[in-house]
């Protein structure tokens, strides 16, 4: 029998202690292969700050928009005051940039009718109009995190990580005429292949560091990789063999498999160049915690751990799927989030939704706080060396609007961002922001992304 609770508590406590320590140079192979690989492309170094530390890019997605009046600060530029929802960020306001006036016009109805939730999440990181289909031919675009991963993924043991706290999917149809794939994924490796996020903290931890107790993980990981190496040749061969016998869509499907084989193969071959895999002195988390708050915190902690150990520099965290109807007993809200978000102006519902917005923001703030406390290899904080976008693809959940999306950009981008401000863009594509972030990650100057019209200069 698994004893979930004590294990998990130990993990959380352990992690607390772990991140509280000033620096973990030993865990970062900052001087080795990574720096060597960190060649410059068109100016910016690949996912590396000017001071030589890793530069991380993360996106945290929360569903159903936000109560606007509680979300947006007053004032502008450096002279602004947080409203209620962002209060939890006030302790590190100099590391946070609030961006208003960013839109996803491709999430609006257009000729596609209903389905704003599916579009909100489908468009959020892709910037394209996703194809309205309940399954036959899903089509979005490569998401910006995957664009970044494509260029910088080889620098770390994992090109990117995808996380979620939605371990259970609702059955039946998703949003009017859209496949559930648009709502349960935000990272898209290709326009037709979403990357399913990992909901299980144990499996995520084991994937990052190996299975077993501290001290045994490295060996377990090596054994697994040796095994995989012997199998990979066969499955690659077998898939090619099969490929010749198939046609049309079947072949396309098999290509997903082949791409995955190549990806895993690449990673295993590169494994040696990363030196010893870190083995954090922590218990492996037991599984999905029973309490939602603990669950969300644990996943944030794991994302942080992945960054801290430089296991990856790109991560997306779908905190809850778009349209989520979760209720929040822990803060006294028994109605569903989605149900409440269509408040039709009712004051009590608006109040409850803002409480939910606040709850999600508090968890994010806790993550930022920890990231702010961790000293990176260059002496700056991990938060300083990160670009962490938090937000939703809906702005007003009641009316399903997709302009002036509620987003916050945390972190200093290794000195390339100018946080500590409230910047109003007054109606520009969100994709413009993505282009500018991709530039900082060292992607070769992309001509455009999604519906971008330009770059965002003043961030």
């Amino acid at each position, binding site marked *: 029998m698994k004893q979930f609770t004590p294990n998990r508590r130990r993990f959380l406590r352990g992690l607390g202690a772990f991140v509280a320590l000033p620096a973990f140079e030993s865990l970062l192979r900052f001087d080795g292969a990574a720096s060597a690989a960190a060649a410059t492309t068109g100016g910016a170094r690949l996912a590396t700050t000017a001071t030589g530390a890793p530069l991380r890019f993360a996106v945290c997605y929360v569903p159903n928009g936000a109560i606007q009046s509680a979300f947006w600060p007053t004032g502008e530029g450096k002279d602004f005051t947080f409203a209620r929802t962002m209060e939890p960020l006030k302790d590190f306001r100099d590391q946070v940039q609030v961006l208003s006036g960013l839109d996803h016009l491709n999430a609006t109805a257009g000729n596609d*009718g*209903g389905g704003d939730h599916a579009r909100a999440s489908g468009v959020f990181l892709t910037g*394209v109009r996703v194809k309205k289909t*309940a*399954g*036959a*031919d*899903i089509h979005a*675009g*490569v998401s910006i995190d995957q664009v970044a991963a494509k260029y910088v993924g080889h620098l770390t043991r994992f090109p990117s990580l*995808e996380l979620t706290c939605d371990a*259970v*999917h*609702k*059955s039946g*149809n998703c949003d009017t005429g859209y*496949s559930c*794939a648009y709502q349960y994924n935000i990272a898209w490796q*290709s*326009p037709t292949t*979403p*990357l*399913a996020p*990992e*909901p*299980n903290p144990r*499996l995520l931890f084991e*994937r990052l560091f190996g299975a077993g107790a501290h001290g045994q993980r490295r060996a377990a990981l090596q054994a697994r990789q040796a*095994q*995989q190496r012997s*199998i*990979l040749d*066969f*499955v690659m061969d*077998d898939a090619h*063999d*099969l490929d010749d016998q*198939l*046609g049309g*869509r*079947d*072949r*396309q*499907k*098999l290509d997903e498999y082949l791409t*995955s084989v190549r*990806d*895993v193969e690449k*990673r295993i071959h590169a494994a040696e160049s990363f030196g010893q895999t870190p083995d954090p002195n922590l218990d492996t988390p037991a599984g999905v915690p*029973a309490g939602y708050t603990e669950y969300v915190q644990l996943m944030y902690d794991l994302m942080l751990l992945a960054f801290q150990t430089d296991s990856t520099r790109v991560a997306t965290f779908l905190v809850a799927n778009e349209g989520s*109807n979760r*209720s929040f007993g822990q803060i006294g809200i*028994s*109605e569903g989030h989605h149900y409440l978000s269509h408040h*039709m*102006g*009712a004051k009590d519902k608006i109040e409850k939704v803002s409480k939910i917005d606040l709850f999600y923001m508090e968890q994010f703030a806790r993550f930022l706080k920890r990231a702010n406390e961790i000293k990176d290899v260059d002496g700056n904080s991990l938060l300083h060396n990160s670009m962490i976008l938090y937000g939703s693809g809906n702005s007003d959940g009641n009316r*399903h*609007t997709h302009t002036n999306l509620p987003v916050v950009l945390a972190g200093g981008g290794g000195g390339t961002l100018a946080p500590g401000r409230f910047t109003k863009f007054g109606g520009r594509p969100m994709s413009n922001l993505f282009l500018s972030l991709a530039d900082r990650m060292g992607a070769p100057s992309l001509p455009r992304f*999604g519906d971008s019209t330009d770059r965002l200069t003043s961030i």
Partner: protein
Amino acid sequence: MGNGGASSSLRLAIGVAMGIASFCASAWAGTDRPAEQFRKTVQPILSQYCFDCHADGSNKGKVAFDEFKSDQDLLGDTELWWKVLKNVRAGIMPPQKHPQPTDSEKRELVNWIKYGAFALDPAAPDPGRVTLRRLNRVEYRNTIRDLMGVDFNTTEEFPPDDTGYGFDTIGDVLNVSPMLLEKYMQAAEKIVNEAVPTVARSIADLQLYGNDFRGGGANGAKLSFYRESNVAAKFTARRPGSYHLTLNMVVRGSFDFDPGECDAAFTVDGAEQWHEHLKWESGKKLQIDFDRNWQPGEHRFAFEIHPLKEIPKEPHIGPNTAVPTTVDLQVVSLDIQGPMEKQYWAETKNFDRYFPREEVPADPVERKTYARQVIAAFAKKAFRRPADDHVLGRLVEIYESTASQSGKTFFDGVKEAMVAVLSSPRFVFRVEKPEPGASGSTVPLDEYSLASRLSYFLWSTMPDDELMSLADHHALRAHLNEQLKRMLKDPRSQELVSNFTGQWLELRDVEGININVFRVLRQDNQPLIHPTGPAATQPARQVIASAGSGTGAAAGGGAAAGVGVGTGRRDFGLGASFRIGKNGAGSGPLFKLFGVQFQLDSNLRRALREEPEMLFAEIMRNDESIAQLLDTDHTYLNEKLAALYKVDGVAGPDMRRVDLPKESPRGGLLTMGAVLIVTSNPTRTSPVKRGQFILDNMLGMPTPPPPAAVPALEASERNSAKTLSFRQVLEIHRSEPLCASCHGRLDPLGLSLENFDAIGMWRDKERGLPIDAAGQLLTGESFHDAHDVKGILIKNHLPDFYRCLTEKMLTYALGRGMEAYDVETVDQIVERLQHENGRFSALIEGIVDSAAFQRRRNAKDRMAGAVGPVAAEPQTGNLSPN
């Protein structure tokens, strides 16, 4: 084709099809082209009934019939004609207040759409395009269970599958990511290591569990400290020798302290092996190890409980949980190993599943041949078709490269090859091939593919030996009908029941859905229920029902002396206390009404899920009419569910068939608790969701998608200061023309179920206001309540229900959504259902016999250009101008 000939039902289907074909051939005789036919017969119908809104500058719903620039334009708009077909058939268009086309005019229109616009050929239906399907989590788990004899928990190990069209069997959305591939490889290794034994013989090992110990009505799984009991189990040693036994027990107590104590003893053949004085120490584990030297013969193990405390007169109520406390001893297991002497070792479990010989041949050549034989047999099962020589050669190479390493054995090599097999795309995907030598634009699937289609459809798992053997002999098609019957009788068909209904009716959500029972009950019963005590601070809130007015007589349970219980109270039937736990864990707050308790805990949730499953299973196994899903005179209940439904005389936790009282509002899916709950919000009903559910899942009637921008309703609702019933709120909603088009279809159906609250319980009032469930369907029929609606559905909309269920099940079976070219296939099955009074076999045979199930487009054929190799997608579609 050279296969054994079509089954009789297939022949029937073709016969029907040919009939239609000849009908349409005659109807269209002499007509040259669909476009001309359109102008001659169809346009006049459209002009008479539709042009008011959909022509001459009017294009309601963005539909106009006179804006086609060319014949090609007209015929090519499949989406439009499909929409017309659905709306006309559903009786939604033309709207009821407008003149209606005659039946023959409707037929004319429908036929032109099918055979003219869609150019369907009933004699050679298009089987459609099915994408290579990955096993979903359920199928993977079942397949591993049947292939390897072990249970691998895919629900925990693999991420949830994406779904399409409401099902998790849709090839197009079952993706593979690098993470999933890694997981597959890891799973393969883990499974093989756990499942494949490497020794032919080992020490025999047998477990007895708590339930195996019985006596005097008691059961070793739960031995109360308050009850004198003696339970025993027997074991026969077949071989002489030394045995090692391990006994595991645990003390199970309620959360709150219980004063019970007892003397517990364990005897072997009458001799005491252990005894202990036990108290409430919940979770205390006891393990006893001992050895015996036994001759062949029977041995008796017994547990005795001697209570040391009287049963209290008043139940001991826990201060924290407000429920009676308990304390029991649970016998977890008795593990018997032996004989330990090697000559008496038993065959290792599962060894002969993989290895036909006890000893590995010593001769290297013979040994390699044997390895090849073992691997070939395994690969064939795992791939659901024989592995070709090339693949087999590669697998044997893997075997050799491992087995030849120092310290590695024959078994290590074979296991490594098995890991490769389970990681192969041939295992992970369901690879389908056409009959060898078949040609044409569509081709029959080969029998291995057909065997897999059958087994994954009906059992959600791999084909069994019988199916594989028939496929080996190319005799499956010839025996299709009897196989179908066998498979439906097999217990594995429960997978169809639970996986299909679990998604069609969203029953999978029932056990985890979040509901706030307190809120649900409180808002409708303000005078009846109020929280007492410091509700906010106590871990459990107790809600006592006080006096209320009503029509129901006080039930027996009302006599209990509860705090604040008045007289003349009205009961919810039995009076209810509910505990609804999140995730079915039974850990939510407890609600107590009228002194009688029962809880919407995991037991009740399971009952809620099983009720519709059991009705569906009954219809399937007994080949009854699927119309019973709309209304029946019986259902399946256990005590807790019966209490929720106010049905008397059902005791105990087991589900059983119950004839419903005449006046019961239950019967059929629509008024089952599970359906009512999954279509509610956490605190109250949602007539909109319920209406949508009926249209989507019962009638298959199209609902236009909601407008993208919610119009300004806020003002109108806010202006009204007094409490509005939900019906009134929705009426405001419907007074907006933009909302009316859609909510006119949704709301009346949903509101007809307003007598059932968000946990499926009957109610007469909503927020203190009397419930008015009456209304009118968009198709014109008036009704008073849910009962009437069921009657109307059966009387007037049975074909719609047949069509809806057919489409849902075809989608599930084929792993793809319905397309316009499927209209004919579905029509044929619906016709068959009507002809056979809705018998389940008509549905299932209709699906299995259909071209869509039996054939596929010929990927190599240029005629099937639509499915020809798809040009590689630009990998960065959003990086280029769009």
